[in-house]
Structure formats: C-alpha cells, structure tokens
C-alpha cells in the first residue's frame, strides 16, 4: 500500500490550502457507505429526502440506493479491493449480495439512519485505513462525508440521490466501477470536485439555494477527449489549471487599469497562485495589477469597488456537475453587480475535463434579460492561450 493514513483536519475553512494528497494514487482499501434513504424523496416527487423520510415512505417510496450501489459492486467482483463498510443496509448487505468476501464491518447501522451515522461511519473508515470513500447517496451524503474527510481522502459517489449538483459523483454506477477498476492497478488521477450544499427546504418551495460547500478530492479517468492526430489532449487537471492560471495572470498583468473580481474554485485559485496573492477558495476576491484589492467580497463589497464606472472584469469557473455558470454558489454576484461589470466582461474558465463532462453550460444570473445577453455560445478559457466554444443550454440543468 502506497498511502499512509493521516488524521483529517476537522475544519471548513474557506481558505483551505491543504494539499495532503498526491495527484496520483493506487487504491486498494475502500470505505464503502450507502445512505439507504437517498433518492427516496425524488421517487415520489419530493425534491429531496432530508427531513421528509416519513412523508416519502407514506407516499410509497422504496429504498433505491442499494440497487444502484449493487450495480457498481457487481462490476467489481473480480477486482482485488479491500472493503471497509457498515453493517446491514449501509453497505454489508450489498457486498454480501454481490458475493464479496473478506470485508470489514466497522460501524453498526442503527434502525433509523441520519447524517450523524454517515459522519460517524466515515470516521471509522478513516481509522481503519480507508484510502478512498465510495458512497451511494446524494448531495447531502457528499456534504456529510466532506465534513469529515475535507480534502484528505478522495470521495467517489455512485449517483442515487435526488439532487446531484456536487461534482464528486461518477456519471453512472458503471462509470464508478470503471474508475475503481483502473485505480486498483494503476495510479489514478485526482481532481478538485465541488461539494454543493443545497437548502432542501427552500428547494421544495421552488427556490434553488445552492451554496458551494467545499472542494473534495475525487478520482477521474483522464480519457483523451479526442484521438488526436498529432498530440494528445492533455487532460491532467493540475497542468490544465496551471495553464489557465498562467494565461489569465498574464492578462491581469497586461491590463493594469482593469479591476478583476475572481470567483471561487481551485481553477480560479491557480490564477491567484500565479499572481502570488492569497485567494479564498470559496469566496470572491478582487485584484488589480496583481494587487489584492478585496477578499471574500459580498454584493455590497463588490458594488463599492465598482463605483464610479471603474472598468472591471469577472473571472468565474463552472460550479458543480451540471455546468452552471453563475447562480450556483455565486449568490454574491447579483444582477446589479453583473450589470455594472457588463456581460461582455465576464471571463469563464474551466479545465478540459470539466468541459468534457458538461455538454451545455447553464447561466442563471437571476435576471432573464441578463441571461439572454450571453447569447447562444460562450467562450471558455480551457488552457494557455486556448479556449472552447460551449453551447448555452436553456432552462434549468436538472
């Protein structure tokens, strides 16, 4: 085993600079957790299960997470992985059904499970040397696990929940299996993946409040987007981020009269790194001529900096798994702020891998006229001196 266990830090700092994990990892020991109630609310039209379990059951909802997880595990029967899991419906049953033997049960599942069980089980996994947490659930499960592991142990989600805005989920149960199969024998690439926190109460009332909760590490397969004729498409996330960071940092240095408001994320943080300034991971910061002008700005803070027609640009990345630009975890950027900056002064950045996962981008500024001003296509900076044209989808990504 090539990885040594390290206690996860228990904090949710917005300026988490920890990079304990290497980018490449061979994984043999997997913490496996199922949130047995995940997805039940959605099946009966409840938009989420948090706090709604009784109603979901009364409407006839049946557990579905187990069958989704079973699809993944079934594909991994011949892969030499060691599982650490919870008793009964939180993991053990699915492993047994799939014919997996020799796994370790480190957490006793109670009759009724809650977020506390997810967190406690996860702590037990870490104590037993889990090198990756494979889980089946939704955004709530991802958030609970992230609160325990932060970015010290990678998370990989089997999609089963109602809402999956977080980017730690594989696109399907089979895709999750493929990643683990690869990771059992060859070094696996890790990337920063958004963990989104959604207010389910508000969501059921038709209001989407998605906050960016943090950045977990998540494994991915760096498929070559194209069978290129002459060069391989470089799909290494870290290199791509460095290229984007170098390019935009040069632009910022080359335009000393312009104020840059830089949004959250590890891609935009690469820009700050090039400029040698401290950037908050989850907040908006302002930079001019490579000087930090403001940190973790709220709407008022931005408007103050934008006073008197000061020329400005907004640099933002795609947030979450569905290709959202603005509207998800960027509530600080109100329509008023956007109007001051102007839609023509928005620079969108994203790595090629992120773009390959999202065929369309969704823009939700909270103002339909502003949304329409972006047009049918937007340009996304995806590398050093390289951009991609992406189609803007209509409506909501879900």
């Amino acid at each position, binding site marked *: 085993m090539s990885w040594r266990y390290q206690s996860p830090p228990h904090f949710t700092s917005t300026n988490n600079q920890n990079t304990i994990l290497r980018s490449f990892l061979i994984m043999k020991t997997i913490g496996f957790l199922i949130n047995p109630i995940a997805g039940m609310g959605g099946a009966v039209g409840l938009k989420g299960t948090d706090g709604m379990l009784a109603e979901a059951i009364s409407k006839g909802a049946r557990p579905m997470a187990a069958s989704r997880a079973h699809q993944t595990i079934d594909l991994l029967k011949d892969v030499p992985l060691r599982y650490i899991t919870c008793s009964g419906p939180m993991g053990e049953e699915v492993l047994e059904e799939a014919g997996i033997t020799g796994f370790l049960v480190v957490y006793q599942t109670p009759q009724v499970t809650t977020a506390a069980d997810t967190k406690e089980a996860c702590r037990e996994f870490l104590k037993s040397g889990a090198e990756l947490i494979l889980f089946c659930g939704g955004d709530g499960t991802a958030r609970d696990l992230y609160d325990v592991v932060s970015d010290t142990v990678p998370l990989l989600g089997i999609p089963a929940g109602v809402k999956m805005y977080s980017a730690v989920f594989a696109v399907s149960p089979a895709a999750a299996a493929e990643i683990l199969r690869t990771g059992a024998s060859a070094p696996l690439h890790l990337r920063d993946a958004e963990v989104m926190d959604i207010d389910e109460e508000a969501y059921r009332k038709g209001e989407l409040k998605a906050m960016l909760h943090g950045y977990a590490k998540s494994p991915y397969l760096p498929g070559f987007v194209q069978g290129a004729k*002459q*060069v391989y498409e470089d799909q290494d996330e870290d290199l791509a981020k460095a290229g984007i960071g170098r390019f935009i940092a040069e*632009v910022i240095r*080359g335009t000393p009269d312009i104020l840059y408001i830089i949004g959250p994320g590890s891609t935009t943080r690469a820009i700050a790194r090039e400029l040698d300034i401290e950037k908050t991971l989850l907040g908006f910061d302002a930079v001019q001529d490579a000087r930090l002008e403001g940190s973790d700005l709220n709407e008022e803070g931005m408007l103050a900096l934008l006073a008197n027609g000061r020329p400005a640009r907004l640099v933002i990345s795609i947030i979450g798994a569905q290709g959202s630009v603005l509207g998800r975890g960027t509530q600080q950027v109100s329509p008023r702020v956007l109007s001051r900056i102007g839609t023509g002064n928005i620079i969108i950045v994203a790595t090629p891998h992120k773009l390959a996962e999202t065929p369309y981008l969704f823009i939700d500024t909270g103002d339909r006229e502003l949304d329409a001003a972006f047009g049918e296509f937007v340009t996304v*900076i995806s590398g050093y001196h*390289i951009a991609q044209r992406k189609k803007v989808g209509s409506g909501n990504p879900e």
Partner: protein
Amino acid sequence: MNTKIFLSEEDIPRRWYNVMADLPSPLEPPLHPATGKPVVPDDLKAIFPMELIKQEMSPDRFIDIPGEVLDVLRLWRPSPLYRAYRLEKALKTPARIYYKWEGVSPPGSHKPNTAVPQVYYNMKAGIERIATETGAGQWGSALAFATTLFGLQATIYMVRASYTQKPYRKSMMQVWGAECIPSPSTRTNSGRAILEKAPDTPGSLGIAISEAVEDAATHDNTNYSLGSVLNHVCLHQTVIGLEAREQMATVEHYPDTVVGCVGGGSNFAGISFPFAGDKLTGKHPDIDIVAVEPASCPTLTKGIFTYDYGDVAGLTPLLKMYTLGHDFVPPAIHAGGLRYHGGSPILSRLVHDGVIRAVSYHQNEVFTAAQTFARSEGIIVAPETSHAVKAVIDEALKCRQSGEAKTILFNCSGHGNFDMSAYDAFYAKALVDYEYPEQLIRESLARLPKVG
C-alpha cells in the same frame, strides 16, 4: 453535361506558375535567425539542393517542370475536375460547384505534387537520403512514395502520438520503403534531450522538425524536405490550379469564387495562385479567393503580419507572415494538417494585400459539412479538406438566398480514409469546438518583450 472533366496526359502543365512575379512589389526576404540579415542561398545549402533554393528565390513567372518529374506526375495527373451536381441538388442552390479531386494520387492527397519534384532535385544533386517530419502522416507517406520512385532512402520522424494512433499511414511508408521513426527518437541530440527529460512525451511537430533538420544537417548525403509553407512548395502545387483553369475553360466557365483550406498554405496555393495571378494582372479583378482555416488556429484571420520563426525552437529563418507566435501550440483538433502557427509568406502577403480573404470555422460544423458532402458526392474527405467543404456549402447557401448562380471552385485536397477515428469522435459528440481568445492573448502579451 459530364460529371467529370478530364484533361489528357498531354495537357499536364509543363511549367509551374510563380505568383511572386505578379506581386506589385517583391516579397520581404527571409531573415537569418542569428544575424537578422536577409538569407542568402549559401545559408540554405546544408539542407536543400541548389535548384530548390533557386526556386525559393526566383522572380521568374514560369519555371519548367523537368520531364522525369512529369513522368511520375502522370501516374495520377491530370487529376479530375468534378461538377458537384449532387451536392448542388442537396443544397438546392443555383450555384455551380466544381471541385478538383487530389485524393486520386497514390498517397491520397495533394502532397506528392511537391514531394516528387523535391526528391527529384535532391537526386540530381547527388543526395542519397531525405529526412523529414510528419504529423498526421500525409506528408510522410507522400515523401516515402516519391523517394521510392527515384531510388532514394527516406527517414521520416513521425510524431509519436500519431505513430501509435495512426498505424496505417506508417504502414504505407513501410510499403514504399521508408524508415518511419517515432519522434522523439534516440537518433538525434534533440530527440535524446527530450526523452531524457520526458520519456513518456507524445512528441510534437516542432520536435520532429528539429530531429529531421538535425539529421540532414549532420549527414553529408542527407537533405531535409518540407511539405508546406515555403515558396518552392507552393510553386510545385500550382499544377492543381493550372489544370483546373484549363478544365473549366473546356466547359466555358471561370470561377467567381475559389476556396481551399489552409494549414501552411500549400494546397491552397496550388488551387488559388494561378487565379490570384489573374486577379493581380487585372484579367479577372473581381474573383473572390477564400482561404479557410480552423477557428482553433486562426493564423490568417487573427494572427499578426510580422517576422516570426517557422519552428517552435526558433532555429529556422525568420519569415514575414501571419503568425500566432512560434510558441503557440494549437489545440489537438483532428485536422492535424492545419495545426500550424504561421503560414506561407506569399499567401500571407496576398491576404494582407486583400487579394485573398480568410475565414475560419469550428470543428463540429466542418464535420457536419463533410457528412453532407459524403452523403451527396460520396467522397469521405480528410478533416483538413472538410474546412473547404464547409466554406463552399456556406457560399452555395448564400446563392440560394440571393438567387445568384455563382461558379464556385474548391480544392478537394485529400481523402479521409485513415481518419475514421475523427469521424467516430464526431458521431460520439466528443469533438471540442476550440477557439482562439484573441483579445485576451494580445493583452497577455502586452508586457512581454518583443521578439523578432
């Protein structure tokens, strides 16, 4: 009326047309990278035969094609000119669309039009071996074909990624007796240096050029050969346009619009320079000549007209051309032959002077156009050629709107039979529409020191 218009073998052009003779003022000379002074023939002697150096600098309007070269060109030339009746019908356009089909050459593209004379002049100069690079493999296979016919050896440095991914181009080179080596290799100092630093590198055209040039410069019996950009390469390709003009004359047509795709510019030069000459000399002042390039590598539409190096390492003479900067690494589009930061100096000059106009397209839309062409005319074109097809379809659709019966000619430069993985990617919706963020790039370079 016939679908194909043929010329007899007797009608193969006997002279290449040199558009430099008809430029209003001479072309700016290439500059020596060390001295900054204009290059003189002796500077190029280490890697090129004197006849090609003379052609590179010749002010003569016509240059005779040697008989032994004509004998080889006869294997596939004159190439047919097609009237694209089925495409016209599919587009419901009143436009008349003609295309020159260069895919009939044994290697399947226009490239042997210059590979054959280049190898011939090297043979005459007593050279025994040619070293060159190839990216996608079109040029490498054309050079392998030419060297085998003239009894020379060929060493072809093929970008390693293509070497693994496109095995059939490599197989063709082997059939024609050439040695095809994945680049970077352990043969050269530059290759070894790269391998030491990055043993798993997929390679690049820039690295392969360095290896081929080093090979030629360090072996007395070996010269280097380039498949595009240079004046003599463009010159050799003019057989395409000269034939096309004759073929169209037999049906009493002359094009209103001439279209070709552009990477380094050689196939475009081939179809268009004879017509550009007609425009420059006032015979057909209104002809519209359109160069089509990828949006991801928009040298002519977004580059700067200035002196720049021809290669990544900055070893070649400085050429006055449209350039995106010699250190620009174009994204990995499938039209590998169009991934070049610069362009032919003659073509650049003609674009700069407004004789030729340039347009650019994204990857997905050109493959859609190629599909339309394949489903009407039958030919599955190379990804490079699909750029020209897209521009032609757009012109023809404009005619449908305006009701104009324009005559459009384009160069169908090669088949895509070895590019099926590109079509697969298109159907899998895995093709990325790359762009060149021009304004940001200019801003990013604002504080960098000027080079060249």
